[in-house]
Each structure stands twice: as C-alpha cells, then as structure tokens.
C-alpha cells in the first residue's frame, strides 16, 4: 500500500518537476529505467512470495541501476556501448518477463 502510494507520488513528482536530464546522463536513462522496472517487478514478486525485504529491495534497485550504468559506461569507453546496453536490456528484460510471469501465477493461479 505504502509502496504503491510512494510509486505514484514519485511519478507525479517526476511529471510535475520536469527535471532537465544532463547530457552526460542521457545514455544511461534507458538502462536505469529498465533496471528500475526490474527492481519493481522483483519486489512485487517477492512480496507475493512472502519474502519481501525493504533493504534488499532498495539495495538491489540502486545497485542494479549503478551496475547497469557502469557496464554501459565501460562499453562506451571501449567502443561497444550500444552492444552492451543491448545486453543489459536483454538480461533485465528476461528478468522482468520472468517476474511478471511469476506474479501472474500468483494472482490468477494460472
């Protein structure tokens, strides 16, 4: 409940504040978004599994975003930035799908 409210408040704040994304941060935005989605779905699934832990949620969220950004940063420096961001998106995308499937099994028993 708190989580949903906080999520909505975060969305509203982001829409209202219109923060300008610095240019150097722009390439990492899509990666951060996918990592955030992964953390949210993982958290919901853990909650349904009954093993949710706020600390794990926050730490995994932040570390996911940071590690994904770091991989892309390194890739950019080494000339394989777009390939590595594709890799990150694929891996996190698979996880999102798997978590969404688990959530679906929980909710609909199907």
């Amino acid at each position, binding site marked *: 409940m*708190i*989580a*949903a409210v*906080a*999520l*909505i*408040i*975060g*969305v*509203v*704040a*982001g*829409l209202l504040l*219109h*923060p300008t*994304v610095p240019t150097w941060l*722009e390439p990492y*935005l*899509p990666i*951060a*978004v996918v990592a*955030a*989605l992964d*953390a*949210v779905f*993982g*958290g919901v*699934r*853990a909650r349904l*599994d*009954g*093993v*949710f*832990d*706020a*600390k*794990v*949620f*926050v*730490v*995994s*969220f*932040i570390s996911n*975003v940071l590690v994904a950004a770091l991989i892309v940063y390194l890739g950019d420096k080494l000339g394989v930035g777009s390939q590595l961001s594709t890799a990150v998106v694929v*891996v996190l995308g*698979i*996880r*999102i*799908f*798997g*978590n969404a499937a*688990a959530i679906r*099994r*929980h909710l609909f*028993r199907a």
Partner: protein
Amino acid sequence: MTAPTDPPEHVEKNFSTKLLVDLVLDPREPGYEEAAKRRGGRPANHWFDKPLLTVGCLLAGFLLAVAYAHTHRSAPETAKVHSALVDRVRSAETRTDELARTEQHLTDEVNTIRNSALAGSGKLQQQLRTEQLQSGQTPVSGPGLRVTLTEPSTPNPSSGNGRAPETPTSAGNILSDRDVRSVVNQLWSDGAQAVAVNGIRLTPTSAIRFAGEAVLVDLQPITSPYVIEAIGDANQLDTGFAASAVASRYQTLKSAKGIGFTFGEESTLRFPATSTPATLRYATPGGTP
C-alpha cells in the same frame, strides 16, 4: 504457490549454463531468499523497512516519470525547431514577393514618369522603348508560338522497385536544362523577338541551367511542364520550328520515352517584364572595335 521448475541436476556442474537457466526459469533476486533464510522464515520487521520502501518506490516512480518526460519532450523540441525554420522560410518568401511587387510598381512609375518627360523628343522615346522591349524591361504581347515539354507521368521502371525513390522529383527525369535551352535557341534562331519560359521572361543576361533536380531560369526554379513561349511571326516560328532538328528530336523522345511534346501558334501571348533587371557593372557603352 507454484514454484518455478527446478533446474535439472546436471546443469549444476556448469556454472555459466546454470546462470542462464536461472536467468530464464527463476529470475527472482536471490537476495530476497537469502534475507528470508537469515531471518529464519519470519517476515522482515525493522524500523527502517517502511521508510526504505517508500524511498525506493519514490525513486523508481520518479525515474520512470523523468524518462517518460524526457523522451516526450525531446521530440517536440525538434518539431519546434523545424516549424520555426519553416516559418522563417515562409516569411522570407512573403517578403520576397512583397519586394518584387514593390519593385514592379516602382518600375512602372519610373516608366510613366520617363515617358511624360520624354514626350517631346519622339525619336529618343521610340529608341528607349525598343531597347527596353529587347532587354525585357517592359511587359510585351503579341502573336507567337507555344512549345510545351512535359515529363512522362509514369516514373522510370528502373526506380520502381517497390520503394519510394529518395527524391520523388527525380523519378524519370528525362528533361533537363539542355532541352529547355535547345528549344529556346531554336526559337531565337527562327526569329523570336521575345521569349519566356514558364512565365519567366528571358533577357540578354538570362541563363537556363540545372541545379539539383530543378531547372533554373534566371535562378528561379521551374518544374515540368516546361512551357516555352516566343513572340514573333507566328507562321515563320511555326514552320521553322516544325522543320528543325530540335522538334524532330522531341517527336522521337515523345514516342520512345513518353514525354509530352506539343507546339502550336498562339494569336496573343503576354509576357511580364523581367523580375531580375540586369545590372551591368563591367559592360559600358562605347568603344568601337
């Protein structure tokens, strides 16, 4: 709860394979399991749970919203720049038209004043009028010949491979500045006294050339159909043009490539004065060879 199927035993040996299988079959964050094990199965219950959860969800929501706003703001940004440029081009065009009209108006005024000033000296006025006519400074009308060249309506089969050609105008560009020029030259040699191409009056300094995909007459782009009109003895123009090599060439092109090619006498043609009067900087009168 329906737990995801456990990975088969044998893959345990190969760590990287297990990683992939885990990734696909059981994408749960292992941290949750471990934390639950450490707590011994009891649900987590710390004082910092709720604030942490709130902060994490706030961050996640904020991030998603920022990404959304960022993506949707940068698109209108380019559109804004584009429409601003279009506006500037449009206003520049309007201004050009306005200036051209003003210029035409002023030229008329100058002509009227000059005519009234020279009213007494008949010969001088006559000479001036002839020269103005020849240099395209005054509108002119009279009988003559009209030649029309049209691009074939169907595009070249070579560019019709299902994709739209990169520049639509280039599809089947058979006619170019050379064609317009050769018709104009033929008309001059048949005794034309004034020539206009698509309503643009030719002057002694006019150039017909090709730039990109458009034919330029005195720097003004024109497109198909190319209408070349000449004022002169209509009969002489007609017979001379019909018998010329230029006409037979376009008759051939008409049957072979499907271009449009017609010509015929006109009882009254009207040409405007040139919109780009020549400013002769180097050519000065005098100096008999």
